[in-house]
């Protein structure tokens, strides 16, 4: 399985530069909130010159190294929107495209030889659909992990292709690149295993005894073997709506009104097709650029605004906003059709209700019961007139 790894380093930071060119050239850190309250901040991305930072580092530690930096609150929906567009472009070149995470994609190359007889042509085609602003790194190998490493260590503007030399290429790389748990990486360091070549040289038995099932995986990855399948994107319809509020608000009612307006647009599109909402994601952006997102799933597709809004209200009460909201939106991630419901074989309940209303009106007008139903009183009686009786149909 030949795979092309596409790596877009510092993707979030580059998205911000693309949107706001004035921050280009400045040192900046893109932050995301660790919790819903937004009190704890972590580093999501940073400008390339800030060496030593890494994703997930607490803001305080990052500031202790670099005091004079610009802090940017992450806009995850925007990043994913840009990344999805990029994946759409890649799908023009290959039907098998996986968006592993923001800024990292894998493209399946099997069966494309007749279209792209040469790897050079393929790489040229791929580069044409990716903006140069993202400085894409490309790498081709026989699995996802070696393709990722090939892309990671490819020269800017170039591409590294690993064939039979994958072992030699990996042997000198640090164990820190292994996609395993932090605990396992620390353990490797404690054993004095610094490079992938050292790990690959070990027999599988001792590694498994020390690391459990992950030990085998570690050895395979270190040897350049990764049989993790490619998970191509599923073609699904996604509907997105967003709005900028006329004034920032913390009012739950105001938020609900705005979401209701967005939902009405969504249902206008869905109603003619008889579709309902299976799942959706709600997001807000506060005036301090705090980002809030929650997902909703419906057991049965929601077919109208009222049922959807009631669920959204419950969600908002359980997950409060990190601050005053200035922008909000929703993304419909799943659609479904109404489930079948078994109805009464005989008469409809509503018709029964109407009939009962008519009977009561008749009683009122005539001054007493007019319609009766036969009721068993003493059906076992030998005296015929005692077996059955009439009772008012209205029950009154």
């Amino acid at each position, binding site marked *: 399985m030949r795979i092309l790894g596409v790596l877009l380093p510092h993707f979030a930071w580059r998205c911000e530069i693309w949107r706001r060119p004035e921050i280009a050239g400045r040192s900046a850190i893109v932050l995301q909130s660790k919790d819903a309250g937004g009190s704890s901040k972590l580093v999501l991305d940073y400008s390339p010159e800030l060496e030593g930072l890494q994703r997930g580092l607490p803001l305080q530690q990052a500031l202790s190294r670099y005091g004079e930096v610009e802090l940017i609150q992450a806009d995850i929906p925007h990043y994913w929107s840009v990344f999805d567009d990029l994946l759409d472009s890649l799908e023009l070149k290959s039907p098998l495209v996986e968006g592993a995470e923001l800024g990292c994609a894998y493209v399946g190359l099997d069966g494309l030889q007749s279209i792209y007889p040469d790897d050079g042509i393929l790489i040229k085609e791929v580069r044409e659909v990716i903006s140069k602003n993202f400085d894409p790194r490309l790498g081709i190998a026989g699995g996802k992990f070696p393709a990722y490493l090939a892309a990671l260590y490819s020269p800017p503007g170039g591409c590294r292709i690993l064939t039979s030399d994958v072992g030699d290429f990996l042997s000198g790389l640090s164990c820190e690149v292994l996609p395993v748990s932090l605990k396992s990486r620390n353990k490797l360091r404690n054993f004095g295993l610094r490079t992938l070549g050292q790990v690959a040289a070990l027999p599988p038995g001792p590694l498994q005894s020390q690391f459990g099932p992950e030990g085998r995986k570690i050895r395979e990855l270190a040897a350049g073997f990764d049989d993790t399948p490619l998970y191509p994107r599923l073609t699904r319809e996604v509907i997105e709506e967003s709005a900028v509020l006329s004034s920032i608000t913390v009012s739950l009612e105001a938020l609900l009104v705005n979401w209701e307006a967005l939902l009405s647009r969504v249902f206008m599109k869905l109603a003619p097709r008889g579709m309902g909402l299976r799942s959706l994601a709600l997001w807000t952006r506060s005036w301090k650029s705090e980002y809030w997102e929650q997902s909703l799933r419906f057991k049965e597709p929601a077919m109208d605004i009222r049922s959807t809004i009631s669920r959204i209200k419950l969600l908002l009460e359980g997950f409060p906003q990190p601050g005053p909201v200035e922008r909000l939106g929703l993304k419909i991630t799943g659609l479904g059709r109404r489930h079948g419901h078994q109805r009464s074989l005989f008469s409809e309940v509503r018709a029964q209700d109407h009939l009962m209303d008519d009977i009561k009106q008749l009683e009122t007008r005539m001054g007493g019961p007019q319609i*009766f139903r036969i009721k068993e009183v*003493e059906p076992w009686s030998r005296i*015929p*007139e005692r*077996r059955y*009786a009439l*009772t*008012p149909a209205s029950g009154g």
Partner: protein
Amino acid sequence: MVQNSGKTLCPDTRLRRINLPEPVSVEESASGLPTSISTLEKGGSRGIFPLVKDLVAQAGTPVSTPPVIKTAVKQVIISIEDRWRIDDEWWRSEPVSRLYYAVLFAAGKRLVIYKDLISGQWYKQMY
């Protein structure tokens, strides 16, 4: 003697009894068996003995509704198909004692009548 409170018959006052016995005029033979019945029939006087015409105005009938004309009709019994007796509630002040007959008329019509053995009155009733 136990007083008949009526609770057994219709414990719920909203209930309206149905299939109540209807008095009929019956001619009896010497042995006490029914031989003919005179009943009031609705409609024109097509019976064998169109003797009495009376207007029977039903209670509560609106004024605009035309009165129902009933005619006394005598029908001869050609056979008695069945006979049974009911004695019940003998412990009450108004015991039930009836002798039922399933009779067949010449026109082929079947009817169930009974004689109240306490009052001697004849009635017709669906059984």
